[in-house]
């Protein structure tokens, strides 16, 4: 309810305030496939805007959020980017699906309007289009996999199994996992797919058990299918360790997979012991009455980076904001301790490749960091 009130305050500013406010567009997904990720990130943005406005806003002007829902549909997303720019948005934050964010770029590049995704992980977002008005601070998929594999190397693994779902993203991550494992000289002794909509993963887990791996890598991104895998793992009494993709960092596992995830390691961009995280969690809890998830941190960092860029630009001018953004350095909630977002010359990806962490489930809770970076 408090978040709703904050949103209402952000959206329904008085006419006088609206004229003076700095309008930031947000393209999110409220009903589509990205909703589990986009919704908490958007809440993080709303919270961040509220915090900024309590402190007087940016350059003495309030932040006004213009939030639109693209349902993760790229065509809808591009039209919404145009709408937001027409409504006066000087910056667009994209927290929907990567292809939708990509489609928005066709508009922001033409309209020379700064755009950033604080959470999308697709590697192609800054490489396929040479859009100087676009930045990505979400950790790249390749960085996530490299971090998990760097941790795996410390275990001296020789023989592992790989399992995923049949979603497009699950297959893509599986391919990247396979490539990384093979590059590391680790033998994949069994590779399995669990179809979405299956009622069990026991046959696949039996085959994996038969191959006797030292560890299992879970590349799947469909939560229900991953839960099936973990149930079969427990039912069959398997003991080899499980290393999982960033999908395990979504908070729903703590309720939907009760009793199933203890000991599973997963890659994440959130360190609960980091001072910035502790401050963020305390402030968020005080404001909303409940604890944030890691996904809230992506949105919070996104709006704070935008505010920093506008402050640094010293004016609400898209060209000046673009230049300020490219030279920004900022320590946020996300990333390992000490990590700062920054954009190397010629690069528009701001998440430090050594900023990811590997965490472990302790009971049903997403627990401590056990590995940092790719070294």
């Amino acid at each position, binding site marked *: 309810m408090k978040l709703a009130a904050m949103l209402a305050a952000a959206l329904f500013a008085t006419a006088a305030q609206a004229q003076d406010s700095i309008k930031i567009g947000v393209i999110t997904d409220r009903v589509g496939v990205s909703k589990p990720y986009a*919704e908490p990130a958007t809440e993080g943005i709303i919270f961040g805007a509220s915090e900024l406005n309590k402190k007087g806003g940016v350059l003495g002007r309030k932040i006004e959020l213009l939030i639109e829902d693209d349902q993760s549909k790229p065509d809808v997303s591009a039209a919404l980017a145009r709408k937001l720019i027409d409504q006066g948005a000087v910056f667009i934050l994209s927290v929907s699906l990567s292809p939708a964010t990509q489609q928005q770029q066709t508009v922001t590049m033409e309209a020379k309007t700064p755009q950033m995704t604080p959470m999308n992980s697709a590697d192609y977002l800054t490489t396929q289009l040479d859009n100087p008005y676009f930045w990505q601070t979400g950790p790249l998929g390749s960085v996530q996999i490299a971090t998990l594999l760097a941790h795996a190397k410390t275990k001296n693994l020789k023989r592992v199994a790989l399992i995923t779902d049949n979603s497009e993203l699950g297959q893509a991550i599986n391919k990247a996992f396979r490539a990384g494992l093979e590059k590391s000289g680790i033998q994949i002794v069994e590779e399995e797919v*669990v179809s979405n909509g299956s009622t069990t993963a026991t*046959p696949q887990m039996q085959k994996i058990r038969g191959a006797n791996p030292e560890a299992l890598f879970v590349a799947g991104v469909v939560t*229900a299918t991953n839960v099936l895998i973990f149930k079969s793992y427990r039912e*069959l009494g398997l003991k080899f360790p499980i290393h999982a993709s960033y999908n395990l960092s979504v908070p*729903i596992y703590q309720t939907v997979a009760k009793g199933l995830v203890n000991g599973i390691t997963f890659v994440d961009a959130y360190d609960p012991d980091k001072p910035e995280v502790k401050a963020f969690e305390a402030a968020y809890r005080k404001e909303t009455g409940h604890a944030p998830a890691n996904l809230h941190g992506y949105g919070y960092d996104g709006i704070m980076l935008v505010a920093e860029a506008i402050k640094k630009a010293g004016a609400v001018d898209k060209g000046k904001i673009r230049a300020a953004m490219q030279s920004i350095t900022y320590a946020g909630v996300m990333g390992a301790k000490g990590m700062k977002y920054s954009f190397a010359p010629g690069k528009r990806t701001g998440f430090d490749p050594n900023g990811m962490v590997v965490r472990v489930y302790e009971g049903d809770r997403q627990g401590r960091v056990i590995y940092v970076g790719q070294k």
Partner: protein
Amino acid sequence: MQDFFELAVGAAASGCVYGLIGLGYLLVLRPTGIINFAVGEWAMLGAFGGFVLLTQYEWPYPLGMAAALAATFLIGWTTERVVVRPLVAKSAPLLAPILALLGMVVVYRETISAIFPPDPMPVPYAFGMGRLEFGAIGGTYQSCFIIGVTLAVFIGVWLFFERTVAGKAFEAVSLHRRAAALMGINLSRVTALSFGAGAVVAGLGGLLVAPNTSAHYLMGVPLAIQGFTALVIGGVGRVEGALLGGLLLALAEQLTVRYAPIPSGYAQGMPLVLLMIFLLLRPTGLLRARA
């Protein structure tokens, strides 16, 4: 062999769920001639009923289960009243209610996606996560529970059709609607009850499988396909055909994944392969209707 015995009980449980969904089709199909692809969504509604009553409100399992099934009965009954009956009253062709019910698939799914978060929702096991062992064969408590409940349902439905006057009325309607009406059978009531009963057994399938798969707004379509395939394999002529088809389908699915020398990604196509084989070679299914 250890793997086979481990799989047998779990596959039988999956087959029972497919059989219940198949029975959901059958109960509507026989008296009305309507193939109702919304049964998968009824299963999804049963699963969400379990989530709300058993997980959120923590009702005792029997009470929560009964209430969830009562709710699905009402949904099935109301669907017939609101969506199907007006079309039948206007003498619309048979295709009209089939298409309208396909539209209801979207209505059910979007309603649930608007009410609940998009994440899979947990539904508790009836008896926890333990295992029962019968010599070499073993299965989880939930698998054994699914098998027991499904057998009870199929026996009950079989007895209803074979041993009761009301069941004979349903049979009469399925044989010849107009003649049944002339014999004084209330067609509207039989049709409404068939939708209600179809929703209950499909909802039961969803409720029983949800502790494994979680309740999710997209869970209906795969179950609808598996239930339909089970019905095609077993045949629409006999109640027990749906169960036989479900069991064969689940065994074929899981044994193919486990033992066939092909990647498990390809093995997932087994239901569609079976569906095509039966439609081409034995479209009446394994069990033919009694003369």
